């Protein structure tokens, strides 16, 4: 048998060191590895350099809780619905974190370079924009065939990728469903990969469901049901819009962030059990109702 990669949340997060470049899977309010994010807060990691595409509460919480030192995401916020990410915005405006804003595609090309074992990749855009000015590490390359000069971006191999999946076996074969966002690319490009899943299952079941991340990419797998909450993890649960609203309200001040962290993250119950108790089991169960009817789903979506 292949090594057993099951870990506790606490042990898994020990693979993340202060100062690491950390890729966060999922997007916006969808399948973000929130249990891992909360554990980073509990363990008090510092100066993490976050990379990702378009994100929400994951990055905002890590910034608010003082875990992040630099943020290289393409977007952080709550869309037209709940608006700007308060903690991220405040830290950016105060200059307390480094804002290395990127573009989804530029990040993709940097991950591809790492995944392909190449030192750089070219991109077509970026020239002429302010994004270029934020990244002195970008360069230029001349096409040996056409003579075109293109922006070149260096390979980016995150130290750790954090991903929340649907199910996995103990060896670390992971099933995800689309949208995959950058989860696959993060897993291939990163040096270490930590995956939480709703359910640990046997190898046959994950193979049947469809392996998206094969075990050799994965260093640790943690069973963390509801581990994406308050973001969605379909088909298990829809996103918890009311909880996001609560965060956005709280995050408008440092005190609010502290109170949120105290209530939900480092709460007395401890760990994810404590989190789920603080949120309330009835409410968590209700998020699984999305499939009962369109009306119910709309109700959840406008909660």
């Amino acid at each position, binding site marked *: 048998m292949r090594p057993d990669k099951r870990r506790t949340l606490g042990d898994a997060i020990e693979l993340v060191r202060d100062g690491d470049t950390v890729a966060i899977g999922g*997007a*916006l*309010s*969808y399948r973000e590895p929130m249990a891992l994010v909360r554990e980073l807060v509990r363990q008090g990691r510092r100066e993490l350099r976050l990379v990702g*595409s*378009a994100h929400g509460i994951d990055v905002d919480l890590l910034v608010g809780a003082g875990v992040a030192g630099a943020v290289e*995401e*393409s*977007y*952080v*916020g*709550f*869309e*037209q*619905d709940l608006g*700007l*990410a308060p903690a*991220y*915005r405040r830290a*950016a*405006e105060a*200059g307390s974190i480094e*804002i290395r*804003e990127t*573009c*989804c*595609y*530029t990040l*993709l090309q940097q991950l591809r370079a790492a995944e392909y074992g190449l030192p750089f990749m070219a*991109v*077509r*855009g*970026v*020239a*002429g*924009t*302010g*994004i270029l000015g*934020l990244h002195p590490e970008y360069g230029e390359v001349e096409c040996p065939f056409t003579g*075109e*000069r293109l922006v070149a971006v260096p390979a980016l191999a995150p130290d750790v990728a954090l991903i929340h999946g649907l199910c996995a076996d103990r060896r670390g074969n992971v099933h995800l469903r*689309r*949208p*995959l*966002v*950058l989860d*696959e*690319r993060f897993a291939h490009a990163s040096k270490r990969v930590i995956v939480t899943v709703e359910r640990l299952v046997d190898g046959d079941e994950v193979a049947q469901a469809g392996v998206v991340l094969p075990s050799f990419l994965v260093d640790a797998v943690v069973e963390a049901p509801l581990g994406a909450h308050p973001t*969605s993890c*379909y*088909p298990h649960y*829809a*996103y918890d*819009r009311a909880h996001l609203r609560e965060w956005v309200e709280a995050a408008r001040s440092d005190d609010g962030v502290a109170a949120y962290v105290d209530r939900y993250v480092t709460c007395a119950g401890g760990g994810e059990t404590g989190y789920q108790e603080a949120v309330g089991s009835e409410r968590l169960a209700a998020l699984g109702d*999305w499939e009962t009817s*369109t009306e119910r*789903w*709309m109700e959840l*979506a*406008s909660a």
Partner: protein
Amino acid sequence: MSLTEFGIDEWVVVTLARTIRDGEIVFHGFGSPCAQVAMYVAKRTHAPQMVLVEGSTYALDPEPAFIPATSNDWSLLRRASHILRFEELFDLAARGELDRMFLSGGQIDPYGNTNVTAIGGLPGPKVKLGGGGGGCNLSATVGDLTLWTTRHRSGRALVEECDFITDLGHRTPLGTREEMGMAGGGPGTLVTELGVFDFPEGRMRLRELFPDVGLDEVVAATGFELDVADDLRTVAPPRFEELAIVRSIDKLGVRRMEFDARELERRFRWSSHQAGCPCCT
């Protein structure tokens, strides 16, 4: 609301929809309810053969029962023919096969450059905005861009110069698109809650006004010298069918989130003879 009365939110959505040509592959960014709803309107009216690419799921031609307030949600996968991989969407655009994209901005300059990164620029922003998602690269290679903003009247949206250029318009301090080797066509249309603009020779020009808006209001709200078309017109009103689709697809009214409450009070109704433009009520 009856189909003889409608709001500016609906009119803006329908106006955005009409910038789509049939057969195009069209993409809206995430967090863009007006553009998102507009794409469904186009698909179900004049552009049945467009390929509708959802803004964060990258689902193709889904038929959602409602539009949720977040863009990456399984409700947006319903009956999709396929879900593109993240990579596939961006590669499609990079090789010039994504025909149209919708982009908005906290700031938009006369060349159609947009700033969704930071008011006051970086570092040291006055207001850190959310960020551009994939717009920075997409705006360089997508065939045609439809811009929109619902905050024109604020006076802060259309500015002489963006504090930060996130997405490319027709010209930046580095030169024109051509000079920078960017293959995409750049912004073709800008729709605001005050009117519609085109970009002859790459510079914004007021082309159409909503009937309850005066030219002086637009001038006052615009942070640069306004070019105005000689034959300035009124924005064509929505058809009943289009309104019905807006309402049936956007049951939760997420499109309204983009507007100030005051704008949502603007109400239009069809004049009884249905010939000309609707009157404001």
